[in-house]
Structures are given as C-alpha cells and as structure tokens.
C-alpha cells in the first residue's frame, strides 16, 4: 500500500509484463475494502428494487398467492382491461385534478413567501416566521388529518363553531365531494410552503448586492427591485424546481389523501395510488393492481426523461 503512491513510474513498466486480466484483478483486490462496503447496499438494492422489477411479470400472469409468480401461467394483457374501465379513468382524472391544482397553488406559494420574507428587515421576526412555518413539514400526514378533523368535524369542529356563531348552518365538510379538493390543496400548501421556501430564500441570499445598488442608483423602488433584480435572479432556481415537479404529475400524495378518504368523498378522493392499494392489497387483485402500477411507472419514466431533456435544454443542468 505504502509504495503505490511513490512508485508510479515503475508500475507502468510492470504493466507491459503482467497480463491485463491479472492487472485488473490486482486493482480489484486493492479495492477489496471498498467493495466490501458497497456489498450490503448492493444486495439491498437488488432485493428491494430490482427483484420487484422482476415481479412486474405478475401483470402478465395468472398469479395466485399459493403459487410462485415464476411458475404461474402467462395470460398476456388480460390484466390491462382497466384501460377500458370508466372507473379507472375517473380515478385517473381525480389524480390529475389534484396534482394540477396542487401545482397551480402550491408552486408559486413558496416563491411568494420567500419574496415576502426577504422584505422583512427585523431579523428576529424573520427567524420566528421561518421557524414556525417550517415546522409542519416535520409532522406526519396522519397528524395533519387529525388537525383537519379537529377543525372541520361536524360535532365540535372550530369552523362549524364559527359558522354557528355567524348564524349559519353546520356543515359536514369531510362528507362532501366539493370540499375535498380545496381541503387537500390547502393542507398541502399549509404543510409545505415554509419548507419549500428555503431553496428560494437561499437563491435570493446568493444574489449579488451590487445589482440592488445599481438598481437603487437607477431610481428603482422596492417593487421595481423585486421585479427587475430578485425575480430574474432566482429564475434559474424556479426553472429547476418547475422541471422537478413534472415527474410527480401522477403522484397526488398517497400519505395525505388516504387518511382523509371516506365513502362519501370517494368519488373525488380516489386517486391512482390509493386505487392500487385498495384493489391490490385490500382486495387481493394482484394482477390488475400490478398492471396499473406498471402503467404509471412507465408514464412516470417518460415524464422524468422528458423533464431531463427540458432541463438540459433550458436549465443547463441534468437531473441525472
């Protein structure tokens, strides 16, 4: 080990004498410790990421739990009948509705919050606001579901108390179709807006102060400075974050939605992820559920590749 660093040149001479495969084995032997460190991770990824990929065959097989998936008979595309099922397309449209609405409201929100925080000159106040708004990010979606219940419950919810105080009727928000989406969108913004703002705050902090000085010399007020210095300055960050949201088009947020589902809101609250869990894990239709999962995985892969192309073209960076 000691000599390798010092004796680089004699090694090159040796290289011509020692056969290449032996040389290669020597290099591998030299890194035996490193390979030992990689081995557990390698096996884990094989078991929990690559083996499930092999399990995709269940989508094309008549699989039952008493037989191995390797020996089950092939049945072709029978499990893909869901593509002709109107139920599936309703679930699909529910998913798109939620992700698009989340994007429309949830994407600009942290940018606006970062811009507003940037205007606060009192550092103590700024720090407090940041500390408190980051906090919900670390709370589980289950707890958020309880918060929603505590506020909206028909019997004792705060909101209903307020409605009664204002002389209105009590309303069962969680038992209505039209309120489900607003509740999902609002709670996800509430939970993530502060934390998502961090990246924009960092981008703003990294802007060159001379740009602002120049703008002030040119007579720009605060609003003009924001419009012509801050926003163009953080535009690259905004673009990257925009591209990063593309792959999650089919990901409505299982952890958030599932705890809020009930029979009444199911027509709007059933999304692809929850549908896969219900048909696959609850009802045991492994084949169709795998087929749905495979379809979304492929679609998602296309979205990621597309997003990567976009970021190569416009962001000058690659995602992978």
């Amino acid at each position: 080990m000691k000599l390798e660093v010092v004796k680089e040149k004699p090694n090159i001479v040796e290289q011509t004498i020692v056969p290449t495969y032996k040389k290669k084995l020597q290099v591998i032997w030299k890194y035996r410790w490193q390979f030992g460190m990689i081995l557990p991770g390698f096996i884990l990824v094989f078991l929990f990421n690559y083996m499930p990929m092999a399990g995709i065959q269940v989508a094309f097989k008549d699989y039952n739990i008493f037989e191995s998936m390797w020996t089950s008979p092939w049945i072709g595309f029978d499990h893909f009948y869901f593509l002709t099922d109107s139920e599936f397309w309703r679930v699909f449209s529910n998913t798109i509705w939620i992700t698009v609405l989340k994007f429309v409201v949830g994407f600009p929100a942290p940018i606006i919050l970062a811009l507003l925080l940037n205007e606060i000159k009192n550092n103590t106040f700024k720090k407090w606001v940041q500390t408190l708004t980051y906090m919900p990010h670390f709370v589980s979606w289950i707890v958020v579901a309880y918060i929603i219940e505590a506020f909206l419950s028909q019997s004792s919810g705060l909101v209903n108390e307020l409605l009664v105080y204002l002389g209105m009727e009590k309303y069962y928000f969680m038992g209505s179709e039209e309120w489900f989406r607003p509740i999902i969108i609002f709670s996800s913004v509430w939970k993530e807006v502060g934390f998502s703002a961090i990246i924009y705050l960092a981008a703003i902090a990294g802007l060159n102060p001379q740009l602002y000085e120049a703008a002030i010399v040119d007579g720009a007020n605060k609003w003009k400075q924001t419009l012509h210095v801050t926003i163009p300055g953080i535009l690259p960050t905004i673009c990257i974050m925009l591209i990063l949201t593309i792959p999650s088009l089919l990901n409505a947020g299982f952890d958030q939605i599932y705890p809020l589902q009930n029979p009444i809101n199911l027509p709007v609250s059933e999304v692809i992820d929850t549908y896969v869990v219900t048909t696959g894990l609850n009802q045991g239709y492994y084949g169709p559920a795998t087929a749905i999962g495979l379809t979304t995985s492929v679609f998602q892969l296309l979205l990621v590749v597309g997003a990567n192309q976009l970021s190569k073209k416009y962001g000058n960076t690659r995602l992978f």
Partner: protein
Amino acid sequence: MKISKGEKAFGVMNTILLSLLAISTVYPFIYMTALALNEGLDSVKGGIYLWPREFTWINIKTVVTNPLVQDAFLISIARTIIGTIGTVVITGLCAYALSFRSLPFRKSLMIYFLIPMLFSGGLIPYYIQLRELGLIDSFLVYIIPGLLNIWNLIVMRSFFENIPDSLIEAAEMDGANPFTIFWKIVVPISMPMLAAISLFTAVAHWNSWFDGAYFVNEMSLKPLQTYLQNILMNADAAQNLRQGSAAAAASTDAAVAAASRSITPMALKMAVVILGTLPVLIVYPLLQKYFVKGVMIGGVKE
C-alpha cells in the same frame, strides 16, 4: 434612503400577513393540546380555543396506560433508533466507497444505484417480494428495506467526494484500512452532514405509517403513526382506546369514576396525537439547526 408611503404600508401588511401565516402553523397544535387536556364532555360544548377550561390529565393518563398505545410507542422508538443508525451506517459506507474516483466499475455501480430512482416495480411486486423474504409481520420490515436510501447515497457521496484526498492519503500511508479511515477521519469531518441526514431519517421513520398498516397485521407490532391512522379511520379501534377507562369508571373512588365517565373518543384521540407529535416537536429545534444545511446539500445535487 427615503421610504415612500406605499412601501411603509406594504411593510405593515407584510408583517401582518406573515404573522398570520406563522400563527396558522402553531395554532392547530395549541388547539389540540387544549382539547387533550380538557374534560371530554365539556369540550363538546365548544368554546375551547387556546387553553383547557376544565383541566384534566385523565385523557393523557388513559392513553399512556393503554397497553396498545404503549406497544405502539415502543415500536416507534425502536424503529426510529435502529432504523436511523442502520441506514446511516449502511448508506454511509456504500457512499464512501463509491466516492473513490479510481474505483473499478465505479460508473456501472452508480448506474446500478440510480436506475431505481427512475423506474420501480410498483407496490404489489414490492409487497410480493417482502412476503417471499418473510418480512411480512416482522419488525424487520420497518428496518431492512430502508437500510439503503438511494437519495441519501447520492447526497453523501457528493459530500465525501469533496473531502481533500490528502487527508485520506496521509492515513493510508500510516497503513490504516478504509474502515478505520472512514471511522476515524471521514465520519468526524462529515458530522454536520451526517447529523442532518440522521435527523431527516429519524423523522421519516417516526412519521411513517404505511408499512405498519399494510405489511404488518400483528397489532402489538404496529408503530404509533399506524395506530393513529387506525383510530382515525376506524371507529371501533377508537372505542377500544376507552377500554382502559372503562375499568376506571367502575372504580370505587367517586372522583376517578366521574372523571373517567367524561372521557370522549375525541379527547382521547387528541391525547394520542399529542403523544405522536411531541417527540418531533422536541427534536425540532435541534433539527432546525441542521436541516437548512441538509436542504442545501440536496439542492446542490438537484
């Protein structure tokens, strides 16, 4: 510099708006704490906003003496501690080895680790695999599948790559093997990054409920968040929470009996939520010190 009237008005509005936002994030926790510490029957009347009106510990007491809640709490603690240490060690070692620039097959190995970020087999094949490995209904299902976190692997690897080679080479000269170097040199200088990743991993472990709900049937093996999900969505399970208090209601001590009769499912639920949130809120100040850094490390890679 002169401040115009418009700017002044904006400053005031801005302060009010941000204050409201900040309040909206803490208020739900204050409200739920007040409900958990108030007599259940009294809460139904409404009017509890900031602090309990009829203060009582009985909800909290009923909940923490419930054997199911105790089990769930211990499972959550165990999975958080074991899972976090395991993940940071396994992923950290793997990331460190992959950070050697002259490692043979380095590129192929990285591709091997990156492909699962782009494509996955989906939930059902994953479930079948867990079953074939015998992990269903086992505590290990919380730990083993998460031991290698690919996202953390990337973040850690790019951090380790920036450690000056001279430090490592000097130790190699002294004849130290890569394990020793990792433990004695790399870990100490990577402490802020490792702390950030550990804290994030710990919070994720504490908050996760799905694996407990679908990969484990045994009630005593379910973590607290799954238990919470269970009593949220299942009224019968919420009724079971009261079993502890049923015994108290029959108590000869009139005061205890009266207090326990006032218990409502809602008050008990709030008490469990407090129990499920408190650990995160306690480590939060610690977390806050590190997570901005953590987001930055992740952000660079994005």
